[in-house]
């Protein structure tokens, strides 16, 4: 039972993150990746800036791992979130989960991204080509008033 959690400033390595969850006894690996889109409501996004309350973010990511293990029989879980400037088309988060059977890892990866978006303290600012910018708000965030 292994949980790997990281918040890092550099580019996420899909191959490496996936390899941390493979094991000779696990047949299925599900991976979910969020890439940064180049537009929002028709405005062209120039770049993205992420910041995190790093120790709490990691703590909450470990809590997500534990919640997954309470619900599904999975083997290994890896999740890495990138912070700092993230160029358009690059990944901001990669979640990889292995399980003996595919149903578990597929359901778990979906739960993982839903829950990360709801409870992990990370913030994204979209910076548009017209130099305006906006802090985004996940719809999964329960204390968002609107």
């Amino acid at each position, binding site marked *: 039972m292994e949980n790997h959690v990281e918040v890092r400033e550099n580019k996420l390595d899909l191959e490496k993150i996936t390899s941390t969850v493979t094991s000779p006894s696990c047949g299925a690996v599900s991976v979910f990746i969020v890439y940064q889109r180049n537009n929002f409501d028709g405005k062209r996004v120039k770049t993205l800036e992420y910041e995190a*309350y790093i120790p709490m973010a990691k703590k909450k990511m470990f809590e997500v791992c534990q919640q997954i293990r309470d619900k599904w029989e999975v083997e290994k879980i890896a999740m890495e*979130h990138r912070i700092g400037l993230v160029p358009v088309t690059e990944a901001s988060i990669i979640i990889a989960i292995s399980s003996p059977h595919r149903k578990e890892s597929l359901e778990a990866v979906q739960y993982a991204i839903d829950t990360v978006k709801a409870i*992990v*303290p990370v913030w994204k600012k979209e910076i548009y080509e017209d130099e305006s910018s906006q802090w985004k*708000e996940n719809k999964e965030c329960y204390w*968002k008033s609107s």
Partner: protein
Amino acid sequence: MVNILFFAKSRELSGVNSAQITVLSQCTFTNLLENILQQYPSLAVISENIILALNEDYLSKDSDVNLQEGDEIAVIPPISGG
């Protein structure tokens, strides 16, 4: 004295990343938030849209809060990770 951390929009509005402030050692969530808003009035525009964390865990809006010297409070606007 507790440490207070500001992130994202709350950091931009307060103008600081972190500070040390004096708050009541026993209070409600609402008291604590009001106290922080008094000391950082620029946060008023997002006051309906903030949660507080104490030592890396979210505080419930209807909770009573016991604070100790050196505790870490974070002002957390709506998150947008993932």
